[in-house]
């Protein structure tokens, strides 16, 4: 029986549980012995001109090796040529031209937390002290906070750009689209700004020696980091080694290499001394990119018997101070705007604006949770308007089973799905009718604690850049063990376990004898890494195909060794040995075959690409209890189907769903990065930013469903689905709990204050 699909415990865990991982700050390497510490001087104001920087006092402080500002950045590589395109959403890259972002602020700061200078000291505590001694003269400018202020354009962040709107895209409104509708509902909703909060913040260490730069960085993508470093520093990629050691969570915010880590790498070369940087959490909450931050207008129309005929989504994406990946995210939102529904007319448009806040980039889901939140709210608004059960409206409008592959009016082709089955499975699993009956009873009794039942059906896109592919190299050694070199990059997902399972399944080499190596560009020069839920379906398939390749090579060698026809040979994967069919006595082990293969050993390298992304789907049901006197909402149950194709490791897949659900619930009920009108962050510590805890969550009820994808493993991505489904389901549940009072919408996060205000407002207007 194949090990695939079985409940294998992780190979990573004994080390992590007994001696702990080796994150950047834990590195105790000879190359980093005596490494200096880097501390950043960051802007305390949201928008200002810099009229002077005085580092003299800082340079005199104890233990100071150097204090560096933008004026010292004289030895960078030449900037890439301006292609003249200005605003573009062609790729998830920072915009250039007038929107270009300096590594350290030059004459203007645009958000609280922007890096202005670095101090390099012998020890950690000295750095924090010395950063305080750098004196920067700021001439304050009016801060642009929020979409309206940005669109008004009274103050420009980039005067040369002549606008705060960096990118626009999508379709203009078609006035006729809603013509045939009995009912049309329109509403502005907010998908709030979130902080990713990986438990390990940003960190990097770097050493320049013998004309070669080595950078250890907490990243999801070592190879991309090397590419970016080479461009910024003007170095040949071959002169750079990037290592991703253990990484304490990423959630999209560690895609590539952060600008502050580029500064650390530059400084190590510039000063000629190894150095290391680990940010504090207070820095992390303003310095690491944030996610989401869309204001959306949804318009939905259809017939009174529940058929949705038209939907329009208008997005204003707050990109923060610099259009990094924020310029690209609304493209993904528009791509998935139609959701899992078969709606004749769907249109979406977006504008990306800059504001004096922390830049926006990917956060678990990256544009797709925003699409799902919009349409799932819209469907519930439509259901409420026509007085139909929201489950029934979904069933009527979901893409039916016979229509796959389904061409969405927004462009993508949904590969495979069973959307209505997922909905029905969740309704049955949760006991939907019983829950509605209990809800009715509580309403009738006028209970203080009211029940809310929220649904979200979703489809998402994973491995959106499938054509970019992923690499794997598999070597079987003369002792019968194997090593996998993967371009994919783990930061908690369990690749080391899953990739070893794939090798054992194909070759019969036990997992314990399979070593998985990732995140070192000297060993793995080409690869993409981890984002967009791409790992298993690209990196995993690459490992699988490398194993198949090795197996075919081994067949020839074993045939030679056993003097048999290769067609007569079989691999006994139970024993991990080759034999003539039906003759176990003729056995040749992997060790013997590998040794026979000669000096080059037995190896295969694969760069696996796919022509199309995959489209996982599912339904979430959240059951909340709302205290109608205090406004406090509590999640009681969360029941989900998250169908990501064939499951290789149920343990790992469930873990991804659990974590995703928690982050989605956190968005719905708790978390938000808040700024005041002057651009001061009000949630820049974990005391103020309400990261969700165990006490605020129930155990989750996961239902199984596997609709295979077309790739060799049948796998789709599972990393982000939980977040995509959970936020709107929970939000819809809160609103459902108080809908009988006349409440039709509450923005996320549905805090007690907001729920209480909505209840009070509804009661007053009755």
């Amino acid at each position: 029986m194949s090990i695939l699909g079985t409940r294998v415990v992780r190979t990573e865990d004994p080390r992590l549980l007994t001696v702990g991982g080796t994150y950047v700050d834990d590195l105790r390497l000879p190359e980093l012995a005596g490494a200096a510490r880097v501390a950043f001087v960051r802007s305390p104001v949201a928008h200002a001109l810099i009229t002077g920087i005085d580092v003299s006092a800082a340079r005199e402080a104890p233990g100071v090796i150097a204090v560096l500002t933008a004026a010292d950045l004289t030895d960078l590589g030449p900037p890439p040529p301006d292609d003249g395109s200005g605003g573009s959403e062609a790729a998830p890259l920072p915009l250039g031209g007038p929107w270009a972002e300096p590594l350290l602020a030059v004459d203007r700061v645009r958000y609280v937390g922007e890096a202005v200078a670095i101090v390099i000291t012998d020890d950690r505590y000295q750095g924090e002290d010395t950063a305080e001694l750098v004196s920067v003269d700021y001439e304050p400018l009016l801060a642009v906070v929020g979409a309206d202020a940005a669109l008004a354009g009274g103050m420009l962040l980039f005067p040369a750009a002549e606008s705060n709107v960096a990118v626009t895209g999508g379709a203009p409104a078609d006035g006729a689209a809603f013509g045939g509708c009995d009912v049309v509902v329109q509403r502005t909703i907010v998908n709030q700004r979130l902080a990713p909060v990986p438990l390990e913040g940003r960190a990097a260490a770097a050493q320049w020696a013998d004309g070669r730069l080595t950078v250890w960085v907490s990243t999801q993508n070592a190879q991309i980091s090397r590419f970016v470093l080479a461009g910024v520093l003007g170095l040949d990629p071959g002169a750079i080694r990037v290592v991703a050691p253990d990484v304490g969570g990423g959630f999209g915010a560690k895609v590539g290499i952060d600008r502050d880590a580029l500064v650390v790498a530059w400084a190590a070369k510039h000063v000629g001394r190894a150095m290391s940087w680990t940010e504090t959490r207070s820095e992390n909450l303003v310095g690491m990119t944030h996610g989401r931050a869309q204001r959306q207008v949804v318009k939905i129309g259809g017939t009174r018997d529940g058929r949705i005929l038209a939907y329009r989504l208008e997005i204003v994406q707050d990109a923060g101070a610099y259009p990094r990946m924020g310029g690209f995210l609304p493209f993904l939102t528009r791509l998935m705007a139609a959701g899992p529904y078969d709606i004749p007319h769907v249109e979406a448009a977006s504008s990306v604006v800059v504001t004096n806040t922390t830049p926006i980039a990917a956060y678990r889901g990256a544009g797709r949770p925003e699409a799902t939140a919009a349409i799932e709210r819209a469907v519930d608004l439509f259901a409420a308007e026509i007085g139909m059960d929201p489950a029934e409206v979904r069933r009527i409008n979901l893409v039916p089973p016979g229509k796959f592959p389904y061409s969405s009016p927004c462009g993508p082709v949904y590969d495979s799905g069973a959307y209505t089955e997922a909905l029905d499975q969740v309704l049955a699993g949760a006991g939907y009718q019983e829950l509605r009956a209990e809800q009715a009873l509580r309403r009738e009794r006028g209970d203080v604690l009211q029940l809310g039942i929220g649904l979200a059906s979703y489809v998402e896109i994973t491995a959106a850049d499938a054509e970019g592919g992923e690499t794997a190299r598999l070597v079987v050694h003369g002792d019968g063990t194997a090593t996998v070199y993967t371009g994919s990059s783990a930061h908690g997902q369990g690749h080391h376990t899953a990739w070893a399972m794939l090798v054992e399944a194909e070759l019969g080499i036990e997992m314990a004898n399979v070593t998985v190596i990732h995140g070192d560009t000297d060993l793995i020069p080409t690869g993409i890494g981890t984002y967009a839920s791409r790992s298993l379906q690209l990196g995993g398939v690459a490992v699988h195909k490398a194993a198949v390749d090795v197996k075919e090579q081994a067949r020839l060698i074993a045939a030679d060794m056993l003097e048999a026809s290769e067609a007569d040979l079989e691999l006994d994967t139970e024993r991990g040995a080759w034999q003539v069919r039906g003759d176990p006595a003729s056995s040749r082990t992997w060790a013997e075959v590998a040794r026979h293969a000669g000096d080059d050993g037995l190896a295969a390298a694969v760069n696996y690409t796919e022509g199309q992304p995959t489209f996982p789907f599912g339904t979430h049901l959240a059951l909340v209890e709302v205290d109608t006197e205090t406004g406090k909402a509590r999640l009681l149950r969360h029941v989900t189907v998250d169908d990501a194709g064939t499951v290789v490791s149920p343990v790992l897949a469930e873990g991804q769903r659990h974590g995703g659900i928690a982050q989605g619930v956190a968005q719905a009920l708790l978390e938000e990065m808040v700024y005041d009108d002057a651009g001061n962050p009000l949630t820049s510590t974990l005391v103020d930013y309400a990261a969700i805890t165990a006490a605020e969550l129930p155990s989750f009820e996961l239902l199984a469903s596997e609709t295979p994808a077309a790739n060799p493993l049948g796998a789709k991505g599972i990393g982000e689905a939980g977040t995509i489904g959970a936020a709107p389901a929970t939000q819809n549940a809160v609103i459902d709990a108080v809908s009988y009072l006349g409440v039709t919408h509450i923005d996320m996060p549905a805090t007690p204050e907001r729920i209480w205000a909505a209840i009070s407002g509804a009661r007053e207007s009755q």
Partner: protein
Amino acid sequence: MKVTVTVNGSQVAAEVADRTLLVHFLREQAGLTATNVGCDTSSCGACTVLLDGQSVKSCTVLAAQADGCAVQTVEGLASGPDEMHPVQRAFRAEHALQCGFCTPGMVMATVSLLAENASPTEEEVRSALEGNLCRCTGYHNIVRAVLAAASERRPS
């Protein structure tokens, strides 16, 4: 100042700056890097260790305050490479960790919880771990692991 702490049974003595935090003493002077720093407001619990048997957030304790005390970190839990502590075993069996960064603190918080309450309910586990953030697992499997460890430790 000179600080002497018994860390996982071994005495560690070092001359350190007065303001040195216990977590940095453990990581730098004792050379034990499993205990992580996840925040600067005593909110996340990644740095949880046992100080004379009581769980503390070692980012909020000065090394000087631990002078003459005994500290246990996750490195001191297992009795051998193949002899993990029941809490460690349960975390592995239940897939209660992903990136591993919160894990040492979470495990030590669990050891402390079970010392105080050998048979916690799910609600008690969730409440007791409120001061330890995990961003990966949604806490689902952590809670299962704590309950499993508790039931393993209970005499049947």
